[in-house]
């Protein structure tokens, strides 16, 4: 399987371990990731809160490049995924926007690119195929799969049921870990507010951590660099603000799958987390 890869800006900066794990695990599974050449930023919240045309035009450039190469796209970042899907939708359903964007881009998007989240691309391999690759089962590890917002909402662009998403749970279960049922799996972590309204964002992080811990989860799995950094590296600030003492490791789901497949923790970037996950993983892998 050969698929276009749109890492997004975070994966070359603060979330480089997600990039490492995604490339390593997909490679192990025989998926060939072709990085979209000369890709640009999707614009994120900054663009869509500022200018509608820009919010479509920035992702559109990436879509056009992928289209010219005849590639579908897989996206590891939930925010980038949603921006690319939204742009695709606008460009294929709203003729006026499509023409305006073609004007500033100098190129026309025909709408042939299929955009998948990394969750979908991994699930497409087949849960049984993934299970068969497991050499280091994570039996006994209780994982709270955190979907957050933009992977599943709005329903028009989401990659799974917005209220009861299952993709990550199913993927994590292939490692023999237990995916716990918890109420905050699709609540917002407030990553978009961390600069504009930090105290609000920290409150949201605190609630999610609280619910995960109360449900008995040992680690949180996620599929978004913004969610991960918010839930992981803000734990110190949360503990300070709310007088708590959370220390919940927050992993990218390909890291968990990689560990179960016997890939080296260092190669998966496990040592770069704020809350060290290696202790929790050592417990289960003996």
């Amino acid at each position, binding site marked *: 399987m050969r698929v276009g890869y749109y890492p997004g*800006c975070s994966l070359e*900066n603060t979330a480089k371990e997600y990039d490492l794990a995604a490339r390593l695990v997909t490679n192990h599974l025989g998926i060939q990731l072709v990085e979209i050449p*000369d890709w640009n930023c999707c614009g994120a919240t900054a663009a869509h809160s500022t200018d509608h045309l820009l919010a479509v035009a920035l992702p559109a450039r990436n879509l056009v490049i992928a289209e010219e190469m005849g590639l579908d796209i897989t996206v590891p970042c939930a925010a980038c995924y949603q921006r690319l899907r939204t742009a695709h939708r606008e460009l294929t359903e709203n003729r006026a926007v499509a023409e305006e964007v073609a004007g500033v881009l100098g190129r026309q998007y025909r709408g042939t690119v299929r955009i998948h989240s990394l969750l979908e691309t991994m699930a497409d391999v087949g849960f049984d195929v993934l299970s068969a690759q497991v050499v280091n089962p994570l039996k006994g590890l209780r994982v709270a799969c955190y979907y957050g917002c933009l992977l599943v909402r709005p329903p028009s662009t989401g990659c799974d049921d917005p209220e009861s998403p299952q993709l990550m749970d199913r993927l994590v279960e292939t490692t023999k870990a237990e995916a716990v049922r918890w109420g905050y799996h699709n609540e917002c972590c407030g990553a978009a*507010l961390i600069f504009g309204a930090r105290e609000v964002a920290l409150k949201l992080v605190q609630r999610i951590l609280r619910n995960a811990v109360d449900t008995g989860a040992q680690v949180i799995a996620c599929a978004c660099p913004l969610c991960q950094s918010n839930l992981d590296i803000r734990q110190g600030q949360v503990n300070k603000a709310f007088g708590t003492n959370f220390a919940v490791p927050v992993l990218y789901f390909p890291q968990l799958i990689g560990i179960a497949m016997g890939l080296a923790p260092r190669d998966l970037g496990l040592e770069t987390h704020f809350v060290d996950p290696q202790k929790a993983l050592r417990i289960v892998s003996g």
Partner: protein
Amino acid sequence: MLLGKSQIDPGFLASTARASGQDTLSHCYQCGKCTAGCPTAFAMDYKPNQIIRLLQLGHKEKALGSRAIWVCAGCFTCTTRCPCGIDIAQVMDNLRIVARQEGRTGQGKRAVLFNELFLRSVRRNGRVFETGVVAAFNLKIGKPLHDTELARFMLKGRKLRFVPVRIRKTAEMAGLFAKRKKG
């Protein structure tokens, strides 16, 4: 509360509906499901259902001047569950856009500043230079040492870059930004 001509803009509902592509704004019967599920409503002055009510009554000033539109995290929970099919998150986006265009961002100074710095970085490099944007932001808000403990951690994990990654065709960025509406 007065509903006279000087307090309200009766066309604001229609213009917001048009700009955000929503044709059911007038259907809202104030069930409050948006507010019930909103993760940040606790920090809002007007709750999401009240923002829609302000629009229905034409209270443009109050809607644009609210803190709510800047506390909205854009999580689409409201949109997903609205029984009237209103994309409330999209409406919030449009209110932010109009507030910025009309220079009424008093309640959202930091968000607007961050967005500006972010987009400036994207225009210049084609990708966002996280380190640069955050440093500039902290400097501008007068807290240059904000998050230093995180910076130290990230340095350790070699997660911080000190030079931006630039795409090859940065010139194309200028084109994309050319028609951006000024605020």
